[in-house]
């Protein structure tokens, strides 16, 4: 008997093994591909990233000073056309190019730019090598996107970060680097041998002695080198010659040294002049925020906090950390948080630089609780809280907390930020039922004159309420803290004061108290009485 049309039963484990086998075979058969992202004139680009656009068309040179000696490190293309070169002293460069603008090297900007480059490279692949700043090579094996499109997108992202880059794509990492040097802006090397053969030897090796020897032989290109008999040529050229020969043949595949550093989202800028008003600072902060948020978008993260640091002209710093109620990628929301704070800020010294750092958090996916009332816009709520703090003070806005003891101590308040933080749904427990009317406490408690006869209050006179006491309950003695220096013994009374306004008669329930309870048998008239609060008026 035959079963027709029925598939043989496969267990889930069997199917999983088969799937992994297919993946492994596919990986083995997939051609290797490496992409290199290169930022030419990296240090100069890092410094001029947030400079106004006209600066990019002007002759600019980056210099570095050490031990009283300054050296030009990099020059822009307009400066190079007028004769300025790296390695010159600033005086030499200015002699050749009088309009040259000299800018000092900024290690912070270089570090931030390198971070930005790495974050863009990590969008291509998690396996990224960065042998030196301004250069990243990514292993594209397993990349689902078309390599060309992915690299073009990466270059666009670099452009949005105010960086000009080039990219090379090749089956071998070293050739991808060479392709990036030749690219404008992208070069895809399909035939390694042909591409390597077309290169000048100076591009393949940095050994000056070897290049000089080959130049004496009349060999200037890789193609010419490969036409020599291999055995005899390598015997004469040595180890460096063998490496050059392999590079001329298209290079060899080598494992990449992956970069595994914590992701930092930070940008900084030093101002040319001290800032006097808020508007230019907000303009700069907006630019920094936009660049940082683009980097964060590359990493699929959201901003959960901000750290602002202002460098002041007296070499001190103003630092402030802000929490973002609802993690976001919107520059407007973050800028509003900064603006709300900076509007209230008064500094003794003018800022000369700014550093902005974003705290990143993973995007959260959670099911919404339809029956849980949550804040509609936590970021707006955070901004409103900041405005309320500015209006009233941080100690006057919050969540009321019960007093720790039975004394009328100063008010305790919880942080209002707890309202937009995650907390479990409140479960209504059944507390002991409250009794009596809630008190409206007077802060501070005004003094009152209370007359006692036979230890019973009969009349009260104060700024707020005055009249005959119709009924009273007390005394209620509060004592405690006898174990420390804050030993207290208070006395309180609840009284009903008769009030007369014209023909209208009414009564008011009031609590009075004295901070120092009179001793037993002592005259209460001599005590200092205060009006603690009203139950009803």
């Amino acid at each position, binding site marked *: 008997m035959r079963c027709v049309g029925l598939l043989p039963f496969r267990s889930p484990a069997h199917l999983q093994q088969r799937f992994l086998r297919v993946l492994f075979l596919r990986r083995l058969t997939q051609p290797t591909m490496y992409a290199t992202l290169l930022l030419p004139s990296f240090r100069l680009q890092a410094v001029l990233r947030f400079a106004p656009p006209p600066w990019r068309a002007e002759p600019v040179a980056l210099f570095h000073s050490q031990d009283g000696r300054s050296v030009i490190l990099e020059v822009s293309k307009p400066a190079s056309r007028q004769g300025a070169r790296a390695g010159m002293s600033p005086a030499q460069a200015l002699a050749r190019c009088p309009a040259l603008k000299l800018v000092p090297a900024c290690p912070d900007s270089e570090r931030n730019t390198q971070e930005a480059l790495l974050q863009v490279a990590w969008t291509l692949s998690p396996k990224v090598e960065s042998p030196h700043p301004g250069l990243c090579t990514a292993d594209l094996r397993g990349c689902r996107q078309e390599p060309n499109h992915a690299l073009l997108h990466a270059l666009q992202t670099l452009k949005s970060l105010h960086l000009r880059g080039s990219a090379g794509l090749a089956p071998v990492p070293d050739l991808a680097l060479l392709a990036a040097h030749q690219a404008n802006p992208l070069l895809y090397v399909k035939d390694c041998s042909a591409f390597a053969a077309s290169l000048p030897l100076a591009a393949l090796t940095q050994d000056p002695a070897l290049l000089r020897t080959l130049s004496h032989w009349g060999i200037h290109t890789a193609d010419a080198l490969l036409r020599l008999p291999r055995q005899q040529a390598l015997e004469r050229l040595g180890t460096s010659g063998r490496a050059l020969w392999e590079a001329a043949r298209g290079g060899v595949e080598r494992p990449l040294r992956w970069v595994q550093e914590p992701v930092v989202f930070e940008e900084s800028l030093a101002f040319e002049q001290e800032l006097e008003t808020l508007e230019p600072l907000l303009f700069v902060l907006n630019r920094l925020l936009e660049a940082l948020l683009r980097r964060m978008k590359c990493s699929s993260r959201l901003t959960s906090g901000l750290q602002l640091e202002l460098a002041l002209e007296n070499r001190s710093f103003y630092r402030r950390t802000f929490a973002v109620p609802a993690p976001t990628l919107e520059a407007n929301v973050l800028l509003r948080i900064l603006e709300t704070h900076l509007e209230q800020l008064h500094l003794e010294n003018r800022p000369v630089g700014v550093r902005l750092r974003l705290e990143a958090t993973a995007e959260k996916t959670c099911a919404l609780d339809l029956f*849980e*009332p*949550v*804040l*509609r*816009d*936590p970021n*707006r*709520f955070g*901004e*409103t809280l900041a*405005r*309320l703090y500015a*209006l*009233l003070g941080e100690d*006057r*806005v*919050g*969540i*009321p*907390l*019960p*007093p720790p003891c039975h004394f009328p101590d100063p*008010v*305790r*308040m919880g942080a*209002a930020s707890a*309202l937009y933080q995650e907390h479990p*749904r*409140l479960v*209504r*427990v059944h*507390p002991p*039922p*409250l*009794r*009596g*009317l*809630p*008190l*409206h*406490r*007077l*802060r501070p408690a005004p003094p009152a004159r209370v007359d006692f006869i036979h230890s019973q209050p009969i009349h009260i006179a104060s700024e707020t309420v005055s009249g005959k006491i119709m*009924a*009273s*309950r007390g005394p209620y003695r509060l004592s405690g803290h006898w174990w420390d220096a804050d030993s207290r013994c208070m006395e309180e009374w*609840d009284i*009903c004061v008769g009030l007369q306004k014209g023909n209208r008669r009414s*009564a008011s*329930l009031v609590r009075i108290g004295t901070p120092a309870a009179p001793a037993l048998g002592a005259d209460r008239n001599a005590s200092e009485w205060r009006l603690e*609060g*009203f*139950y*009803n*008026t």
Partner: protein
Amino acid sequence: MQAALKPRASAEEVAALRAQLSERFGAAAAGSTVSTKTAPPPLPTGIPCWDAAGGLQLGQLTEACGGTADGALLLESILTQSPNRISALVDAADSLEPADWPLFCMKRLLWVRCQAIKQALHATDLLLRDGNCQLLALNLQRVPARQLAAIPSSTWHRFHRLLEHRPSALLVLSPHPLVEGAKTRVASAASWDLGALDTPRSTLLENLSVSVFKRGAGPRLLTEIPVSP
């Protein structure tokens, strides 16, 4: 020569035309008064006669007049009904005593302690514009009468306008009728003696006599209509 007047369209024709317009252009239909929005449900108050009169309406300003104890009891009753809701209390006289309030309904209460009436009105304005708190209470009960009289009426009109498009309710606790144009006014007149200080809070709420007045929607109904005595 008198031009021949076209006969006026009947109400059915106008309604059909509006229906066609709204069907074709949706909410963008010019002059369409057909609202597809449903009013948000009111907030429960826990006071039977107030709930019977519609509860605390969202998007409206409600005034509760009466003694300080009455206002506090009303507010506590509303907060107790849904303790998970995020609410705000603008305390103009900084008189709230947290020890006398149920703890579970204060976990999500934003307490704004003001020192002057001007600060309280500014804080209320900020929280109304924020729109995150569904219930906003402005306690003016311990504010001196002279300061209350100095509040310009434009302040209340501004609050009305702010509330119109927001699903929030503003409850003003005042010693006497103060808010101009309040859609709902709750008046309570209870006389309390010292015995009330030992009575359970639930019994006090039951003894609270509350009258709810609603302002008519038509232009001629300027007088307040008692809903329940």
